[in-house]
């Protein structure tokens, strides 16, 4: 294989995953949280593709496509929630939506 070995791709995927996790944990805007979630999903996709390349297994790419479909559906539902929140004039600050507070 030309270029860096699969391990490098997986390393990049790992770092991207960490960045996405950090974003989910730190940001208070719901939309940005959803975007960070996308980052994490994409990192997973990258790892899947890399391993698929390494092991000559088509399942990895299929899985990546499925993940993409799922991510799209999840974004659809999530954004629907955001829209509903906005229509009810509720805050989009994740910290304000704290009825689960003990």
């Amino acid at each position, binding site marked *: 294989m*030309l270029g860096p070995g699969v391990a490098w791709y997986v390393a990049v995927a790992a770092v991207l995953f960490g960045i996405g996790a950090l974003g989910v*944990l730190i940001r208070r*805007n719901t939309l940005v949280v959803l975007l960070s979630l996308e980052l994490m999903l*994409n990192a997973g996709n990258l790892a899947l593709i890399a391993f698929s390349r390494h092991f000559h297994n088509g399942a990895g*790419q299929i899985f990546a496509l499925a993940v993409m479909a799922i991510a799209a559906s999840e974004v659809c539902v999530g954004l629907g929630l955001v*829209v509903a929140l906005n229509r009810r004039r509720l805050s989009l600050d994740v910290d304000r939506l704290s009825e689960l507070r003990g």
Partner: protein
Amino acid sequence: MSTLVVASSAGNVLVWIVWIVAGFSCLAAGVAVISFSNPFYSALALIGNLASLAVMYLLLSAEFVAAAQVLVYAGAVVVMFLFVIAYVGPRHETPWSGGPSWQTVAAVAAAGALLVEIVVAIGLEAGGSLSHSGKVGAAFGSPAWIGRVFLVDHLLAFEITSIVLLVAAVGGVILGTHTRRLQGEEVVN
């Protein structure tokens, strides 16, 4: 890093350069996504991230997936995001503030831990076997190949994915419809 030493032909160098650029921009765009205070800019940064990922997919001989990435993700998902962000209106927020004092530190620690663990896991466990990947045929990653694998080997996954999409579509519509305003509804901010 024996691969570095083994293959150092011109094509290899090009691939390396492309990879470095794509990787760097991928990570930089990711950092940008979580850092901008304006969510609109975050969404735009995501596009950059997705594009660099597509390039990396191409380097990994996954052409169909790269194309799907650009079309579906960058083309549909991010556009949806942009629509909603525009609809919701401008919200500015300082990214690193709020929440209990230990939240930030703990978050960095957790994320860092995950990162390190993944690297260690991959490095320690599979270091040896990951060092050399063999050649793949030209058909690997092509749409025809993907189609055959999808519909022959993984038909169940295909069908279930389609059901999930249907459900999500229905859900999105329901969430998005106007509901009758309830009596005495307050504005909570």
